[in-house]
């Protein structure tokens, strides 16, 4: 009997039983009615803000070619309701809980960190820096290395669990932002958040989402996300969590080869609510078929040497 492949990975000080977890905003306790959440590598909450916020107006969703747009706008019931009502619901399951936090100013990130520090049941924080920075004319918090570094350092100083940073792809140099997060003290980097996109209904002459611009996710963004993971993994020594358009076990293996230690599943959970647990089962089977003892062997194992050195040229 061949031993089952080892799916365990470590995100800094946080060990996971397997590398598959949900993307923030694409998961909630409600999924417990449909899938076995205990199978997941980790749980990730929707982004929590210090104070309640309502999110954007309807319509918040639009289907696009091989993807989707959302202009949900991160509604949050605030830290108090999160601690009192949402957090206890996650205690029904054993995977570590990663709490996504957000803010519209550097100070707001520090405030939510302070309010959630030493709250039982939080294994790590994922700092969502894809929020508009009200102190910089709405430019994303995550677009400037020095702001990212300040946010991460401030959060890190205030909490006692690992801090991850979820990067926005809407930047000139993802490597520079990743390095800033690492310098600030991040234990891991999540790459990447939604691309900025847009859909127009020419008949009504209106955008198809309530806000003209919206977050673009789904299989269509996978090549961009894969490239971001690759660049981030080249730039930093801390682990990278890959996210963006992952829908199959093949996608997961591609991200791991490109440098991801773990992966998050987002839009694909909407398409099929059991996507994560199916992928975990398929990953075990696939590694077993390939004779891979541990998934850790594949992290960053992408070969970029010239294949022509080993593969003969085709005639003709």
């Amino acid at each position, binding site marked *: 009997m061949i031993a089952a492949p080892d799916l365990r990975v470590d995100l800094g000080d946080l060990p996971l039983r397997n590398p598959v977890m949900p993307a923030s905003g694409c998961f909630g306790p409600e999924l417990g*009615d449909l899938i076995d959440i205990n199978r997941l590598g980790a749980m990730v909450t929707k982004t929590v803000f210090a104070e309640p916020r309502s999110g954007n*107006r309807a*319509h918040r969703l639009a289907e696009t070619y091989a993807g*989707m747009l959302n202009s949900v706008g991160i509604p949050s019931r605030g830290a108090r309701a999160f601690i009192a009502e949402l957090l206890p619901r996650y205690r029904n399951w054993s995977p570590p809980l990663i709490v996504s936090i957000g803010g519209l100013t550097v100070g707001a990130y520090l405030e939510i960190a302070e309010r959630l520090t030493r709250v039982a049941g939080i294994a790590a924080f994922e700092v969502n820096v894809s929020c508009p920075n009200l102190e910089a004319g709405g430019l994303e918090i995550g677009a400037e290395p020095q702001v990212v570094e300040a946010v991460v350092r401030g959060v890190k100083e205030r909490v006692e669990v690992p801090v991850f940073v979820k990067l926005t792809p809407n930047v000139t140099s993802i490597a520079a932002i990743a390095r800033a997060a690492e310098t600030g003290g991040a234990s891991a980097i999540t790459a990447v958040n939604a691309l900025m996109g847009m859909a127009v209904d020419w008949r009504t002459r209106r955008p198809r989402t309530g806000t003209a611009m919206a977050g673009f996710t789904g299989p269509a963004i996978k090549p961009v996300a894969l490239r971001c993971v690759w660049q981030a993994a080249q730039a930093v020594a801390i682990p990278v969590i890959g996210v963006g358009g992952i829908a199959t076990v093949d996608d997961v293996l591609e991200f791991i080869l490109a440098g991801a230690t773990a992966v998050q599943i987002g839009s694909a959970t909407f398409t099929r609510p059991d996507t994560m647990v199916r992928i975990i089962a398929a990953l075990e089977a696939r590694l077993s078929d390939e004779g891979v003892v541990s998934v850790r062997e594949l992290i960053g194992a992408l070969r970029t040497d010239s294949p022509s050195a080993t593969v003969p040229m085709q005639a003709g």
Partner: protein
Amino acid sequence: MVGASAGATGSLPRLARLPETGPSAPRVAPPALLEAAVVTHGLIAPEYWRLVLDAPAIARTVEPGQFAMLTVARGEESWPVLPRPMAIYGWDRAGGRIEIVYRVVGEGTRRLTRWSCGDRIVTVGPLGRGFVLLPAAQRIVLLGRGIGTCSLTALAGVAAARGIAVHALVSARHSDALVGGEAYRAAGAVEVREVVDTDGSSGVGPVGAWLAENCRTGVDQIYACGSDRLLRLALEMARATGTGVQVSLEAHMACGLGFCHGCATGHPGLVEESPLVCRDGPVFRHLPSAPVA
């Protein structure tokens, strides 16, 4: 609650969740995820399709006004990404089947038409909080337009079985788009009034007069879906007579369960998020003048 496309709800009066407990609370069972086999699937009118699914876990607990999420992507395909919310038109609890009637309005519903008998569709349901029949109700009015009627048909059957007199209005652009009348008659509705735009019978005048006449003789609750215009008529009547109104809303959805927050009824500027169509609805009661109970 209707599938696919959605009308703006921002201009409507304030709507509230139905009660959590008591006789006016909807019955809600946990949803199930299943690969439902297609039993029957075919065109029933231009643009309108009828789909029967073998879905015992949904048929067992579904209540009128609830919906299901149907994955459009087939087999191993990973897109279309978003599943489509569909009102559950009817069901056979013993036979384990649910029936859906949908209108082809875009790429997602166009792709749905390609499913054939024996195919398995990833389906989640029953979802949402459906319509409530008040314990003492004797007479109710159902107002549905177009595909919106499809979330009301099951209510007619349950109501009629309880001895409640059902008066149903079926409104559509033209006679080909009249769906649900047959289901209402089969359910035992005492009156089915079919009105269309093409001959003017669906206008606010004649429909308002019909509704007023019904309410004059006593109506315990008005149920509406599929038309802001019909809902406004219902609300006018509610103000005049104190009759309660329940309305089923539609929205684009991603999860159907409440965690994605894609279907908020949505007014900007509120600190508290407005209700979610999937989790808090799709059926809401009108506030403040017409409490349900």
